[in-house]
């Protein structure tokens, strides 16, 4: 989902909270995992 990849780390972090997905900081090495989990949650 193009929109997720264009979001800032901060925005992703807030979305993860909204979807109740446990997470650590969104950084380069963890971002793709969290985007995938958000896509699953949104699907």
């Amino acid at each position, binding site marked *: 989902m193009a929109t997720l990849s264009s979001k800032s780390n901060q925005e992703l972090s807030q979305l993860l909270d909204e979807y109740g997905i446990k997470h*650590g*900081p969104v*950084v380069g*090495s*963890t971002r793709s*995992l969290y985007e*995938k989990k958000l896509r699953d949650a949104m699907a």
Partner: protein
Amino acid sequence: TSQKHRDFVAEPMGDKPVTALSGIGEALGKKLEEQGFDKAFVVLGQFLLLRKDRELFAEWLKDASGANARQAGA
């Protein structure tokens, strides 16, 4: 297993290759190395960044290296 875990978390200052991690063979090691996870301490860094959450870590490891559930668990 707890010994393996102790070894893993004692790794920050070590310099072992990623293949030194239990459950990570040559093939998985190679995939991880290609993504910059060439040392055990870098993988430990990822584990800490994922807040030491084993599920999250296993999921990341599967995505990053194609490890199966058993390997990721190790």
